[in-house]
């Protein structure tokens, strides 16, 4: 699996072949606070980059998670239904939301690497 790539909306993407695993960053999870509900997409759904992919809810508010790249949903992390707190505990591992079969892997390569994302966080 490749190293993680990041978006300005604080999603991460890990590409393995043409399958991208998607979650939110530790920074995003900390900003949201304690996650109490996660809505993941149906397997088979097709999304474009920028489409809503999942919804995370903290005690206070609901936040959309956008698809960083386009593709077809091939897996969804339904375990988050029973244990949404996983998003806070291990946001960049077990807290993933969905896996997409990506149409164009180059879309992933165009996203920020960790150093660029860390620099971006410094500007916030």
């Amino acid at each position, binding site marked *: 699996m490749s190293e993680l790539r990041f978006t300005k909306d604080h999603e991460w993407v890990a590409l393995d072949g043409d399958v991208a695993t998607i979650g939110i960053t530790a920074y995003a999870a900390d900003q949201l606070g*304690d996650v*109490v509900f996660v*809505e993941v997409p149906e397997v088979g759904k097709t999304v474009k980059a920028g489409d809503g992919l999942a*919804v995370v*809810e*903290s005690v*206070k508010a*609901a936040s959309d998670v956008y698809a960083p790249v386009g593709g077809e949903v091939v897996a969804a992390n339904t375990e988050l239904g029973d244990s949404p707190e996983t998003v806070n505990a291990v946001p960049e591992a077990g807290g993933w939301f969905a896996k997409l079969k990506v149409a164009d892997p180059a879309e992933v390569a165009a996203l920020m690497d960790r150093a660029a994302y860390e620099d971006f966080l410094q500007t916030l």
Partner: protein
Amino acid sequence: MSDADLKQTPLYEAHLAAGARMVPFAGYSMPVQYKDGVLKEHLWTREHAGLFDVSHMGQARLRGADPFAAFETLTPGDFTGLKPGKQRYSMLLNDAGGVVDDLMGSRPDDDGLFLVVNGACKDGDFALIAEKLDGVAELERLDDRALLALQGPEAAAVLAKHAPAAADLAFMETAAMTAFGVDALVSRSGYTGEDGYEISIPASAAVAVWDALLADERVKPIGLGARDSLRLEAGLPLYGHDLDETTSPVEGDLTFALSKRRREAGDFPGALRILAELAGEGLQRKRVALKVSGAPAREGAEIADESGAVVGVVTSGGFGPSFGGPVALGFVPQALSAVGARLQVIVRGRPQAAEVVAAPFVPHRYFRKKA
């Protein structure tokens, strides 16, 4: 409103020092959460004691020949019957019977009526009271006082160390006392459903009192986020969300605050509408508590009946950490307001099951003296 226009309570620096995340609320920069976050702060308050800065709320004294009778002309509460040492929940009403604000009125001492109103409404409330009671009673704003709430099952033991007289109070009782070396107005009340106190002190003493209470390991600072989830689980309406100037006390499920004597006299603003609604005539909607299945239904979510027809709206909702699931308050037609009524809430375009339940979602644990 830019951040520069926001007012600060006397505890602003103390909040920053405690790691607060500050947000605009009622014209003030207020702590929405501290380092532990909303969930842990909520649960801590239910298990131990939470300390809240509510200094944004409006405090005032109403004085005069008979401030209690004067105040009754604006409210449906029994204030002439309010005994020294007692506190009462009430509301300001407009002539159409709508709630202008909800409030606490109390007699901690012999200095007239002590009022605490919502922060976002205080300027309007105090202007209204001063204008309507001009020549009858005098209103003095107490902008130089801070207000703290200490809430939770360990609140009484904590405060007893600093203010022994506070232990003698029961729920909705109040007293003026010397505590923390200053003059304090202490009431046994709050807005979390837990036992606890609200403590009015001079603003100049706020930091010292805050620090003294936090020095006790049973006490943690709690932000507005958990204050909201605590009051929601307690089934308590929040003005500006669950109540507004169009909402009558009957619609708002606040009939307990309509005094029997005042109902019989029918001598409060909007009495025509309110008494008719009490008699079952013309009641358009009623506030209910909803247990929601699935995702939390937030303020603004539509409520539908079982056929899918939209019948109402959620006015506040979220996840109840102690309840262990999504909870909401909202308004529906009276015919659908009975406990057990099956409804739906529309979240992100999809219907989810919801059921009218008896409030509160989490049992109140107020301290009541045994008869």
